């Protein structure tokens, strides 16, 4: 099979990248391993999606539905569902679908496979491994798609957004959520979710607290938990026991890079290093969405994927302009990472996406090239859990750009 752009992953990033690539003029093949397009949105049945993109409040399945209709109506996009990518090598994508093994030859490839959850093993959770330890996303799929309840007495470790959403969801389904433990002193979830998922239902959230040990042979019987010191080491004198039958883990997401070809990745995000065209060190390989860096809002995923899809399409058509000198973009004081990791010298605007290292109140975010200030943004209240966008003018930049908190 031959095409111009292959997009891997049929979630919000993949659908938007495919639509945008097609709109820019390329023939597109969109590969999805599940039966239907939509990705994780299909199991995110809560509302709050689409406020930025569609200017109305939608649930996850409704948000996915809007893009799915557009993808299905687009004659330049060929959708392959129930199809797994087994290898990506030099613009060739090997797939396994209903016709067995096949190869797609393309001019550009967009990775949009999202991320996966960190598990009990990833965080070296102490204790036994009985039934009843589930990641929040798996719990969400079981409850919302399969209609199966996961337990009655729940403890949630980690206060990421999916964990908070599941605290409310499991409560509505009749379970008792006894506590949410967060090892850090702030939540990585959105503030609005702490309010409407925990406070609305009187679910306690304990900071600087973690599970010391899971107890149970066949089924989870409880957890020992307590506070941690500033090096995240358990303070044994605070050790307590809490009876429960289920532990839900919401302890972070990792970009799903296992099938990706060798490419330089960022230590902080786990995703590929890309330039302002979302292009990796392999010029034909583009990345967008959660495989690049974990987003808090799907609206931002959609916008990013539209950009990546457009540039991948231009590259495939041989229309991507050759660029001048590449200027590295570096995360400075108080900033954990900045995307893109490099921009091209020249004129025009560029939008940075970044996360802060710690909570920031009433400070300026600046982008500097040497002593030359390229842009400034006032941050009223910023937390690591919420991605910031920062648009600057490139004018005058001729060397490394540092983005930091003043």
């Amino acid at each position, binding site marked *: 099979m031959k095409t111009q752009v292959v997009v891997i992953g049929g979630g919000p990033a993949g659908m938007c990248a495919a639509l945008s690539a097609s709109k820019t003029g390329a023939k597109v093949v969109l590969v999805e391993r599940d039966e*239907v397009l*939509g990705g994780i949105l*299909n199991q995110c*049945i*809560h*509302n*709050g999606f689409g*406020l*930025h993109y569609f200017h109305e*409040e939608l*649930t996850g*399945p*409704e948000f*996915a*539905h809007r893009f*799915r209709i557009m993808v299905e109506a687009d004659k330049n996009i060929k959708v392959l569902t129930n199809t797994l990518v087994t290898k990506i090598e030099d613009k060739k994508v090997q797939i396994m679908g209903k016709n067995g093994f096949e190869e797609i030859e393309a001019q550009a490839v967009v990775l949009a496979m999202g991320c996966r959850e960190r598990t009990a093993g990833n965080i070296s959770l102490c204790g036994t491994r009985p039934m009843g330890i589930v990641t929040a996303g798996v719990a969400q799929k079981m*409850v*919302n*798609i*399969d*209609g199966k309840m996961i337990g009655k007495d729940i403890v949630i470790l980690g206060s990421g957004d999916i964990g908070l959403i599941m605290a409310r*969801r499991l409560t*509505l*389904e009749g379970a008792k959520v006894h506590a949410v433990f967060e090892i850090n002193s702030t939540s990585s979830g*959105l*503030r*609005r979710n*702490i*309010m*409407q998922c925990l406070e*609305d239902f009187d679910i306690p959230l304990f900071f600087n607290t973690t599970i010391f040990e899971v107890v149970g042979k066949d089924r989870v019987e409880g957890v020992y938990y307590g506070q941690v010191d500033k090096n995240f080491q358990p303070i044994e004198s605070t050790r307590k026991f809490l009876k429960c039958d289920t532990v839900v883990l919401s302890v972070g997401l990792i970009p799903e890079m296992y099938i990706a070809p060798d490419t330089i990745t960022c230590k902080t995000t786990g995703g590929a290093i890309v330039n302002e065209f979302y292009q990796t060190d392999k010029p034909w390989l583009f990345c967008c969405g959660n495989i690049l860096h974990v987003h*808090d*809002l799907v609206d931002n995923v959609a916008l990013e994927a539209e950009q990546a899809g457009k540039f991948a399409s231009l590259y495939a058509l041989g229309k991507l302009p050759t660029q001048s000198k590449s200027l590295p973009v570096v995360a400075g004081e108080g900033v954990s990472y900045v995307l893109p990791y490099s921009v091209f010298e020249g004129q025009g605007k560029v939008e940075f996406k970044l996360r802060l290292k710690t909570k920031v109140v009433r400070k300026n975010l600046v982008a500097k090239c040497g002593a030359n200030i390229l842009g400034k943004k006032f941050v009223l*209240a910023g937390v690591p859990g*919420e991605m910031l966008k920062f648009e600057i003018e490139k004018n005058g930049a001729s060397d490394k750009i540092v983005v930091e908190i003043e």
Partner: protein
Amino acid sequence: MERQMICIMCPMGCNLTVKEQDGQITVTGNGCNRGVVFAKEEISCPKRIVTTSVKTKNGVKSVKTTASIPKSLIFDCVKEIEKLRLKDAKFGQIIIKNVLNTGADVVVTANE
């Protein structure tokens, strides 16, 4: 009376300060007018959109209320939805009209 709250109207999550003096309510910290509407409602009758799922012959389908309903009715609303066993549920189909007299309908949000 002064109350701090987080606006849940959009993911910005503005920190609102709501002051009530002589029957006058003033809201500060809001990024847009939706924050004022939210804060005023939050101190008189807090409301939420409810999302849950309904049982069908083949499993479950996700549903939502078409408008926010009083917070105190969330569990009753979920119970009403739990009573149902649908043969089939199509995207956008109304499964309960005017649930608990709130003015909101319950509609199917899953699309396949």
